[in-house]
């Protein structure tokens, strides 16, 4: 079973994506979707060597939190772009020490930071324990690091146990 379906979550996602692309739920579409959902993870298995233990309920809660943050932070960035003069802007590099210990968790963490406005994750350290983040407006870089760690990393640690 484990060799046939190495990533159950990915397989389910692929079936859903396939049905969404067809934009209809038919027996034929579902069948092809299931075939794609089984074959694709097998052929791409070398790219996904690890098998992180994902807590899906915490994952959905995390997704909703990130979506909400994207909406709120978009307004904040819009205000900065429209009303703050360049000389009042305080861009900063943040070096965030990470406690996450799987590549999947770090990828999601970096993606979250990039998607929530105001911060772009730029690089990971060669030892894999630090993330380089550029903040558009961070008058207090240390406080920003603490905020990101408390808001996203703490929750991600529960998603990827």
């Amino acid at each position, binding site marked *: 079973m484990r060799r046939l379906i190495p990533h159950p979550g990915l397989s389910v996602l692929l079936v859903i*994506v396939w049905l*969404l*692309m067809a*934009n209809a739920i038919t027996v034929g579409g579902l069948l092809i979707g299931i075939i794609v959902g089984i074959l694709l993870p097998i052929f791409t298995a070398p790219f996904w*060597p690890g098998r992180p233990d994902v807590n899906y309920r915490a994952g959905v809660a995390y997704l909703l939190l990130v979506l909400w943050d*994207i*909406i709120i*932070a*978009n307004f904040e*960035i*819009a205000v900065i*772009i*429209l009303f703050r003069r*360049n000389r009042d*802007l*305080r*861009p*900063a*590099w943040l*070096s965030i020490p990470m406690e996450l*210990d*799987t*590549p999947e968790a*770090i990828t999601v963490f*970096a*993606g979250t930071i*990039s*998607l*929530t*406005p*105001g911060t*772009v*994750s*730029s*690089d*990971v*350290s*060669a*030892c*894999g*324990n*630090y993330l*380089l983040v*550029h*903040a*558009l407006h961070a008058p207090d870089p240390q406080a920003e690091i603490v905020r990101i760690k408390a808001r996203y990393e703490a929750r991600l640690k529960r998603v990827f146990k």
Partner: protein
Amino acid sequence: MTGSGILSDIVISALIVLGASFALIGSWGMVRLPTLMERLHGPTKATTLGLGGILVGSMLYFQFNAGVWALHELLISLFLFITAPISANMIAKVHLHHLRTHAKQDIVGPAGQPPKASQASDWATYEAPHPDSIAATSES
């Protein structure tokens, strides 16, 4: 036109106008912010909500006015959410290279040079990932 038709039209228009405004603000940010790293924030960010608003508006339009399910929009936003951070990351990494290799330092933004990661290691753009760490890309 029925009352609910007018209401849905108002909601759809509001969503599309909101989305278009955010796309415009994001583009304006690219024009007016000082250097590359700051400019990167405009198109990768404000556009997420901009495009999101337009896509939800489009979904509701097909639902209420044409009476068909249109869920392609969900896929568009999913793919956008996957690809936007990666393209931003690639641009940032190229910029990191330029920061160290350019003779002229006029590309350094107001944030200055990035700090070193730690005593023992530099950023992965400058230094090969350490073997046996989570940054290592292949299993050896």
